[in-house]
């Protein structure tokens, strides 16, 4: 914690977090520290370019951010070629330490090598950094026409437990059991984040998605936690929607939803469904929130090894994730600038990469965005 933060804390007293209205984790104090830093002191953020098209789109992000004058200094880390014994995966201990130190990161697509004896890269990141919420805003990009024009929702998914606990066993031959775990602590944590997010971003409604009519105790516990948190935010409407109704309403009329909060499996499916509504994973930003205010924004698409190195990749997903990261850091002005530049470039339609139906290269597209800044 920097000296500025300590001074601020002592001056305003312990109520500093409440006054500044940020979230209850100590990430608030760190943001205070940043706000107190002059703009000449850059913020260090970890960057994982990733594999495949990762490096190209990471370049693109760096260029756009420099042109926009964002005070961020990137600390680049690559996935190693050997298994690090401290992390049991190809991600080195230093990379993880770097994220823990900087509190923010941006991650490109990583391809987990096939094989045994190591954890998947995403799983390592999630467990080591305790990333408990995955936030994905999905909105229709004006100018890029899909079958749905009025999508504007955010999915917040619990990221640590639920059906993805990985606890399975074979009872007898031919009979397998898989455990789905829901705890009060994790559900409260993600519900708190969801309502806080809704409040800070001016959203009016939070819907909890569940299947508590069948899975009464597990999803019932999740709902109970959501209700408890909802009581603390009376200005935000809270509703509960059964997942089959939710799926149907999403494909018929996505404008009905605002912020969605759900356990792990439903979150996975619904967030991908919503990504499909607005144009696919190549355009979807995503951000993982961890304890202590850690935020790791990432591009959720794959590493596309077939177009790697050919300057054809679409950097939109990573750019929009970078914008989410900036908003988390409260650099809202630059975030808006970059966001509008991206939207306008796509809306104009002159420079679009191949996956959006155009023929520009990555560099041309990046240049067009920089011109729009």
């Amino acid at each position: 914690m920097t000296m500025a933060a300590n001074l601020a804390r002592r001056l305003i007293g312990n109520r500093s977090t409440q006054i500044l209205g940020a979230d209850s984790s100590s990430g608030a104090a760190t943001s205070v520290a940043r706000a107190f830093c002059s703009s000449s002191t850059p913020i260090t953020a970890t960057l994982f370019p990733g594999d495949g098209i990762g490096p190209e789109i990471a370049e693109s992000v760096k260029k756009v951010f420099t042109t926009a004058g964002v005070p961020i200094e990137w600390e680049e880390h690559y996935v190693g070629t050997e298994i690090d014994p401290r992390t049991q995966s190809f991600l080195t201990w230093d990379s993880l330490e770097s994220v823990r130190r900087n509190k923010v990161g941006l991650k490109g697509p990583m391809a987990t090598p096939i094989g045994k004896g190591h954890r998947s890269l995403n799983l390592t990141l999630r467990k080591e950094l305790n990333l408990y919420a995955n936030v994905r805003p999905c909105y229709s990009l004006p100018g890029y026409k899909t079958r749905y024009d009025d999508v504007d929702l955010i999915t917040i998914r619990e990221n640590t437990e639920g059906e993805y606990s990985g606890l399975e066993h074979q009872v007898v031959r031919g009979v397998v059991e898989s455990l789905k775990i829901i705890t009060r602590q994790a559900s409260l944590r993600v519900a708190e984040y969801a309502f806080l997010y809704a409040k800070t971003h001016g959203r009016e409604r939070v819907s909890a998605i569940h299947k508590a009519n069948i899975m009464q105790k597990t999803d019932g516990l999740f709902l109970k936690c959501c209700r408890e948190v909802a009581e603390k935010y009376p200005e935000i409407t809270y509703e509960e929607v059964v997942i089959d109704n939710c799926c149907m309403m999403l494909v018929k009329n996505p404008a009905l939803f605002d912020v969605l909060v759900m356990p792990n499996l439903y979150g996975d499916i619904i967030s991908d469904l919503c990504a499909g509504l607005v144009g696919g994973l190549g355009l979807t930003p995503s951000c993982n929130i961890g304890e202590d205010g850690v935020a790791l924004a990432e591009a959720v698409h794959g590493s596309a090894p077939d177009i790697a190195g050919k300057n054809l990749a679409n950097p939109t997903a990573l750019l929009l994730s970078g914008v989410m990261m900036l908003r988390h850091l409260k650099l809202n002005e630059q975030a808006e600038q970059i966001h509008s530049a991206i939207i306008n470039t796509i809306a104009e339609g002159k420079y679009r990469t191949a996956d959006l139906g155009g023929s520009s290269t990555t560099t041309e597209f990046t240049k067009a965005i920089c011109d729009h800044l």
Partner: protein
Amino acid sequence: MVRRSASILSRLLANPSSPFTAPSRSITYMPRPGDGAPRIVTLIPGDGIGPLVTGAVEQVMEAMHAPVHFERYEVRGNMRKVPEEVIESVKRNKVCLKGGLATPVGGGVSSLNMQLRKELDIFASLVNCINVPGLVTRHENVDIVVIRENTEGEYSGLEHEVVPGVVESLKVITKFCSERIARYAFEYAYLNNRKKVTAVHKANIMKLADGLFLESCREVAKNYSGITYNEIIVDNCCMQLVAKPEQFDVMVTPNLYGNLIANTAAGIAGGTGVMPGGNVGAEHAIFEQGASAGNVGNDKIVEQKKANPVALLLSSAMMLRHLRFPTFADRLETAVKQVIQEGKCRTKDLGGDCTTQEVVDAVIAALE
């Protein structure tokens, strides 16, 4: 019967631009002596809009003089368990038609739908999600049959609290049930001239459970060389359904994913108010609205009596085929599709403003 077929044929020939296509199934079949005797079908009206829509079916059946006789049993969603007499009745009649049964959220009452399915071992749930001509939706060329395993998986109902604040739920997958549903899916595809079967799973995360499901599907696929088989992860599947639904044909899934996929596919094809479906086991069959979203409706719809009876009417046509009365099934389907095509009488979920009764009257008028 010959007279009726002749009249249908002459109408089609006279009006080649007739929007609804000729029934794809052969109308002529050899009735055996006694086939015309009325069959008894258990009827469970259910909760919410259930009584409305099952009432609609009864009216239409009567207007058609269909040889079906309903034995009605009242079951409410908040009962502890399905009454013995109802189970007995279904076992006796082998066929049941039901409206939705509400399962109270977090209520401590186990789902009656699940109970029925487990008791009668009704292991396959089928929803045919297909664009209805005349109903404009965002997606065209949708013709997906979702076959969902109905007895185990995430809906086993085995939950317990480990310590206060930590709850576990067991998802059980067995080779026996997975094989059964895979065999059913491939046989369905074979008998109905379907070209592709897709298995939906999440085996990259749930390696043992969904891995077992996939293994069973792969084994069964070997016996059907004429049918293409592929696998898709459930989140990618939902994305593809929304973007390119025409790539899917028959989908076979475990319990929970099937629920989501069926509702999503029904939504893109026009809504769960129009999709027919049924649940079938080795010996019994229960017909109800295809996908489960909205099958109980909300209080407003019940009050205003504006529930959509189309799904249950089309499911009862499936039931008539199951009972071996194909001509009645064809007449019913043609009438319902004509009413939707004309667009004059549609309920709220299809963009109109009619009540259930008005739709029923229109269907009866369209029967011939």
